[in-house]
């Protein structure tokens, strides 16, 4: 008898949360073991020191811990930004472009206004400009999605490349020195437009902003009327229309919010962390953030952990590839493996495999005879 015919798949009732997280934890552990094996094969390192090196890379010294937390906070902000759109089933994979737009606006303010206006005013204008730029970048796909149902996955993607080329254009316009194709540190001597350091730490600002946005987003999605509207539109656009919600308005408003928060990430990247602008300043985090958000099941609090997991992998794999003279992309491979496992394990949370007991008995009975 064909063993594959003797079971079928049934949808589960809702699994208790601790069991669901248990399944996910098992998936992550299996994935980490496989990552260790892959690392051992490529580097010849013994498996235990692989994990040692991972921790060394992410939490090896006070400075490394701060950088890990800072990277995590930026990724977290972008993931939070995308979340309301995803809850609405609007696949905003344009985080990259929206962050770049915000970053570009910040850099423009720093270069054009720095030194000419009091620093407080410059920073205020920077903040407003970056938020507006991010929102504007999200508005274009949102408007056409709401009006004509234009495929948002592709339109947001194209907006990414348009933003990248725009940044490349301004990089050449602003380049210092001429012909270097880099902007260099903006206002290095005057520090005009640099966001303030909090308690003398240059890392703390992004972390605080990230935590504040996490809390705000959690409340917004869970307790506000607009958050509720987002879930209804996401569950069923027809229901939303039937109960009298203006879905077009909800889509555009949510995307404006999404883009605005991405703009904040751009502001922090340029104003607080790098003080310069390049086309790769965001380093593909707009895409990674999609997965951070999805892994956390769109829950802002859980996103703290998922973003930490991804950054931990990135920094750990970065350390390993540096030690062994391997390519930085090693981290992407490990991230991919972990993602595959977590994506796959969702199946065991939603469905269960039911064995056909009756048929088995018959089969057993035949064998006995």
């Amino acid at each position, binding site marked *: 008898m064909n063993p594959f015919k003797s079971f079928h798949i049934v949808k589960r009732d809702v699994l208790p949360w601790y069991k669901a997280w248990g399944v996910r934890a098992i998936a992550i552990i299996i994935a980490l073991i496989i990552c260790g094996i892959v690392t051992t094969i490529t580097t010849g390192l013994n498996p235990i020191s692989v994990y040692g090196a991972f921790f060394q890379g992410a939490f090896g010294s006070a400075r490394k811990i701060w950088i890990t937390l800072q990277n995590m906070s930026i990724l977290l902000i972008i993931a939070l930004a995308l979340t309301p759109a995803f809850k609405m089933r609007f696949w905003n994979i344009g985080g990259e472009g929206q962050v770049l737009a915000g970053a570009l606006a910040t850099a423009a303010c720093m270069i054009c206004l720095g030194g000419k206006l009091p620093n407080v005013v410059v920073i205020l204008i920077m903040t407003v400009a970056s938020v507006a730029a991010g929102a504007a970048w999200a508005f274009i796909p949102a408007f056409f999605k709401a009006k004509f149902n234009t495929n948002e996955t592709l339109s947001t993607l*194209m907006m990414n*490349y348009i933003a990248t080329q725009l940044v490349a254009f301004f990089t050449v316009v602003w380049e210092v020195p001429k012909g270097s194709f880099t902007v260099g540190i903006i206002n290095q001597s005057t520090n005009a437009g640099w966001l303030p350091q909090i308690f003398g730490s240059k890392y703390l600002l992004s972390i605080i902003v990230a935590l504040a946005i996490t809390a705000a987003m959690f409340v917004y999605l869970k307790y506000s009327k607009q958050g509720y509207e987002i879930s209804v539109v996401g569950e069923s656009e027809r229901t939303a229309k039937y109960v009298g919600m203006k879905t077009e308005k909800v889509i555009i408003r949510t995307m404006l919010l999404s883009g605005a928060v991405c703009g904040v990430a751009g502001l922090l990247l340029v104003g607080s962390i790098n003080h310069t602008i390049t086309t790769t300043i965001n380093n593909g985090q707009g895409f990674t953030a999609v997965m951070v958000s999805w892994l956390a099941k769109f829950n802002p609090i859980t996103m703290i952990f998922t973003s930490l997991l991804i950054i931990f992998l990135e920094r750990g794999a970065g350390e390993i590839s540096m030690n062994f003279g391997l390519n930085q992309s090693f981290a992407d491979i490990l991230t991919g493996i972990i993602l595959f496992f977590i994506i796959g394990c969702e199946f065991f949370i939603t469905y269960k495999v039911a064995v056909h007991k009756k048929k088995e008995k018959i089969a057993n009975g035949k064998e006995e005879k």
Partner: protein
Amino acid sequence: MFDIVAFIPRAIVQSVPLLYGCTGEIITEKSGNLNLGIPGVMYVGGISGVIGAFAYEQACVKSGNFNSVLAVLIPLLCSLIGSLIMGLIYCYLTVSLRANQNVTGLAMTTFGVGIGNFFGGSLIKLSGADVPSIALAKTSECFARKLPFAANMGWFGKIFLNYGFLCYAAFIIAILAAVILTKTRVGLHLRAVGESPTTADAAGINVSKYKYFATCLGCMIAGLGGLYYVMDYASGVWSNDAFGDRGWLAIALVIFSIWNPLVGIFASILFGGLYIVHLYIPTGMDYMEFKELYKMIPYVVTLIVLILTSMRNKRENQPPASLGMSYFREER
């Protein structure tokens, strides 16, 4: 002066990776799977071929004999296997385990681009070979071998005959795909699966089998685009991230070509042209920055086309109805 005879071949050469990706994704989407992992698959297809060719060339250095048939077949086979594995991962997750297609696709892209860049950057160190960089000149020569009489046929030869075999294969595969999709029973079943898996299932079509088959085939075709790029276009030199965003453009082309591989042929040539048009717009040395703006053209055009096609909203130009949704028989 604008030289059209020189421009068209360059546009066509640019269009081939796009066409492979586009044809592959059309076949995939016809089964109802929206595979956003195509960029990753194309990287894997490219690097698998490179690894195969690299291993073969290294072996040839030791033994001393080089067989050009093997030099083509080994990378080709490696490339197909590499992209097939990617396709199987995607299918297992989305069809068997019913995972979200967008997230799976993005994870595949991260993974695939990571594999490409990692092995591209570390292959020499990992294999312990004694060469400065990956330059597969001999293999590339076999891939890019042109028709012998192309050179002495004037402009006709330059425009139509001056390409490696993978270029012609791209066009042949696209035409075959169009014929199979519209004229055969297999194509009809495949379209049924993409439009309404429930109906197809009721009619006795094995939905999972069709989805697996179409997606894996689509991935293998797309992977050839990566192979063509590195072996023919880039003359066997792998450099990280050089393939760029062609995978994403290929996915956008699917919408541009309204899920028809024949339209895909013209669309990809048009985009191949747009991709290099910035080289032809004259800019003085003082205005170098505008070159960066011209590079924006293909994306702006894609965006406008996307919007226009959605505004016209014709019934026959719509995506497969169940695109992006996993099928579960017991759900309704």
